């Protein structure tokens, strides 16, 4: 290739991109050495994804220039990026669900107007690529029947099939088990050995330390630091990302679990299309205990959480909540469950936790709007609501404090605090929490974790569902793992580590036993 012209595979000079009033990328300079694995870290909303979209031609920069292998290039659309040898694996895979892997890979690079010949050619060269890089995928299965790990390989193959020499991966491990992530890193190592330049976008410091050569840090749309990975540390990177020192751990005091507050027995959930999402799940949570529910997303955790909170019905089994027994015949809706002392912080706060166009003080009473203190004869008491909100905003450090700001105008972390404050102030006995820190910046994570821990110390029973293993391992007294709708194992706080959790998440034990 033309690598001898420049030691940089990719160079950005003064890239700027504005969305309305928001300056997403502010004069970004970046140099990436050919053949390196280069990490880019930053919090959510720091502008990493926007920058990558500009490199891939998905957005056009307002100003600035880009050099590829030393040559100035203007890339206006993805087609030009592909032609320049850039490939991208998006965070949310760009696959057509009901197409086969082969069709997905061919799409846009078919080679001829009739599919038949091009399909044969594609199949041959894909088999070649699969052999070289250890990227075997079933080519003729619709991708929606394949695991996320395999779908990601298809995305990588898509880029390689188009002869990408610079590969961008946007948060690639978010949907993988730790073992699948290891596989991915092995594949990346093979690609690197072959001279491919890799750009890894992530917010996980551990990954940066594990596989990158260099790392650049973004904060609030600016590139704030460049480091050689071997000469930096996780605390330094964390501080650069957040802009201040971060205390990364939460105090946990030993505390035996009290009487069972939530008992789930043989619970099964079948969804609308007749698929069993949750299969015979049983567990208990005692007072003053956090039970973490781990698993690769999409293995029934969401359905379990929704069934327990009364959003969807369960078809078999029973749930004991304090003195009340809930069965499929005697189901309870979310309002009834709330009165029984169960609160729920939903996984998807935009869809279920908040009404985004509502003002903050209105979002803050959702689900509790019938309570006497908010209600006059016909109307709601705005003053009471606003005052109460002001008090909560103070306690939970919700910024900005303005009760009349639209919910959608808060950052992810502050939106989550609004939801969390609402549910914690209701003083429930049982608290169900889904993805408490998804899309939340590091500064707020620590705060949210502390509040969850305080609830535990106050003797509440807490179910924590999260795809972030670190979060589960930090907070939980016990960890149960789900795979394919079943509980595949349970570990105590002290037993759990990434390896044994990962094996349970992939249900490796059962697969070996059946093999």
């Amino acid at each position, binding site marked *: 290739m033309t690598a001898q012209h420049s030691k940089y595979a990719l160079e950005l000079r003064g890239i700027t991109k504005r969305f309305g009033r928001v300056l997403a990328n502010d004069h970004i300079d970046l140099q990436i050495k050919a053949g390196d694995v280069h990490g880019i870290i930053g919090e959510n909303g720091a502008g990493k994804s926007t920058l990558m979209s500009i490199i891939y031609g998905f957005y056009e920069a307002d100003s600035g220039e880009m050099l590829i292998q030393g040559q100035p290039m203007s890339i206006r659309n993805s*087609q030009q990026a592909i032609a320049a040898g850039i490939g991208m694996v998006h965070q949310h895979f760009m696959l057509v669900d009901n197409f086969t892997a082969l069709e997905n890979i061919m799409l846009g690079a078919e080679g001829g107007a009739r*599919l038949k010949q091009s399909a044969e050619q594609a199949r041959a060269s894909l088999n070649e690529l699969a052999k070289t890089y250890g990227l075997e995928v079933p080519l003729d299965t619709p991708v929606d029947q394949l695991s996320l790990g395999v779908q990601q390989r298809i995305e990588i193959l898509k880029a390689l099939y188009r002869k990408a020499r610079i590969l961008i991966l946007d948060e690639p491990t978010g949907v993988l088990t730790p073992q699948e992530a290891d596989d991915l890193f092995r594949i990346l190592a093979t690609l690197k050995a072959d001279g491919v330049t890799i750009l890894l976008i992530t917010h996980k410091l551990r990954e940066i330390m594990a596989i990158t050569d260099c790392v650049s840090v973004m904060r609030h749309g600016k590139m704030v630091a460049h480091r050689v990975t071997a000469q930096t540390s996780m605390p330094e990177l964390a501080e650069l990302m957040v802009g201040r020192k971060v205390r990364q751990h939460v105090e946990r005091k030993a505390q035996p679990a009290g009487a069972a507050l939530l008992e789930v027995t043989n619970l099964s959930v079948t969804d609308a299309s007749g698929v069993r999402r949750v299969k015979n799940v049983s567990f208990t949570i005692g007072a003053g205990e956090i039970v973490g529910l781990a698993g690769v997303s999409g293995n029934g955790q969401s359905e379990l959480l929704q069934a327990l909170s009364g959003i969807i019905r369960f078809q078999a089994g029973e749930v004991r909540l304090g003195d009340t027994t809930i069965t499929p015949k005697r189901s309870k809706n979310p309002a009834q469950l709330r009165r029984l002392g169960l609160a729920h912080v939903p996984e998807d706060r935009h869809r279920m936790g908040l009404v985004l166009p509502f003002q903050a003080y209105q979002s803050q009473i959702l689900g509790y709007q019938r309570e006497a203190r908010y209600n006059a004869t016909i109307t709601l008491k705005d003053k009471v609501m606003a005052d109460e909100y002001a008090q909560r905003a103070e306690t939970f450090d919700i910024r900005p404090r303005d009760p009349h700001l639209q919910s959608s105008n808060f950052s992810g972390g502050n939106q989550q605090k609004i939801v969390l404050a609402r549910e914690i102030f209701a003083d429930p006995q049982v608290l169900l929490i889904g993805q408490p820190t998804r899309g939340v910046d590091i500064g707020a994570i620590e705060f949210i974790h502390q509040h969850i821990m305080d609830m535990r110390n106050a003797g509440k029973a807490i179910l924590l569902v999260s795809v972030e293993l670190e979060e589960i391992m930090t907070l939980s007294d016990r960890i149960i793992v789900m795979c394919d709708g079943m509980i595949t194992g349970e570990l105590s706080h002290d037993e759990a580590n990434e390896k044994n959790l990962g094996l349970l998440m992939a249900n490796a034990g059962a697969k070996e036993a059946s093999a």
Partner: protein
Amino acid sequence: MSEWFTLLISTLDATLRVSTPLLFAGLAGLYSERAGVVDIGLEGKMLVGAFAAAAIAHLTGVVWLGLIAAIIVSVLFSLLHGFASITHRGNQVVSGVAINILASGLTMVLGLAWFHQGGSTPSLTNNERFTAIQLPFAESMQTVPYIGPLYSDMLSGHNILVYLAFALVPLTWWVFYRTRFGLRLRAVGENPKAVDTAGISVATLRYQAVIIAGVLCGFAGAYLSTAQNAQFIRDMTAGQGFMALAALIFANWRPWPVLFACLLFGFLDAVAVRLQGVSLPHIGTVPVQLIESLPYILTVILLAGFLGKSRPPKADGIPYVKER
């Protein structure tokens, strides 16, 4: 030969004739919706097509020019829909409804202004219409029992557009599943972002699909006014565009099932005409309206999930917005 057999043959013969415009329009909707653009304006495009075909055929005396005019006008309406819903990402249903209203009003106003016949166009002579063509051996096959009438009376003796409509079904299947264009078309209706990141223009693809839909609606319209009938009459589409849409949904957005759905709906229509005023033994007079509403009832039952699962293209009706 039994009287019932003759009756059956003539009903099936009518079925083919009635199904043809449904099939053109259903395939038009298929192209558009598989690319992710909901096309509720099939009705309107058929109507302007029908008007243009009859008007031009009358003025020039050449039916083929009428057909070309129908296609051009219908494609213009398609482009209007595309401009609103692809370029400007407007609501596709609203745009479609607007097209229907515009078509209904425009054909009436222009019809009144140009021809002074209460919104109709003057009657066309047989030279200005698509007329029946006899298939080879239709004459000599007549006497063969059963197969003869089936061939000579039912399959033979339709105009060229009928055969074209049915030939378009395998062609469409081939385009969808065996060509690059089809692959991209199906992809853009499912996940336009995947198409965009693969370096293909979403807008261009969708415009192509919408234009094909316009061409097919032009055929449907020309068929109504210059083949099935011999003039344009106000609002002569009479809901057939919506019937085609129902057939499309009933067929789960797939080419061959579209054919069967259109035949089924056409058959019900043909039966309804036969049963008009007829008193059946034990049952009495069947209300024709009931039979005519069967296609819609069937579609609603299907959508309610009683006849399997409806699976529309995932991005159907959703404008593609790239910037956040």
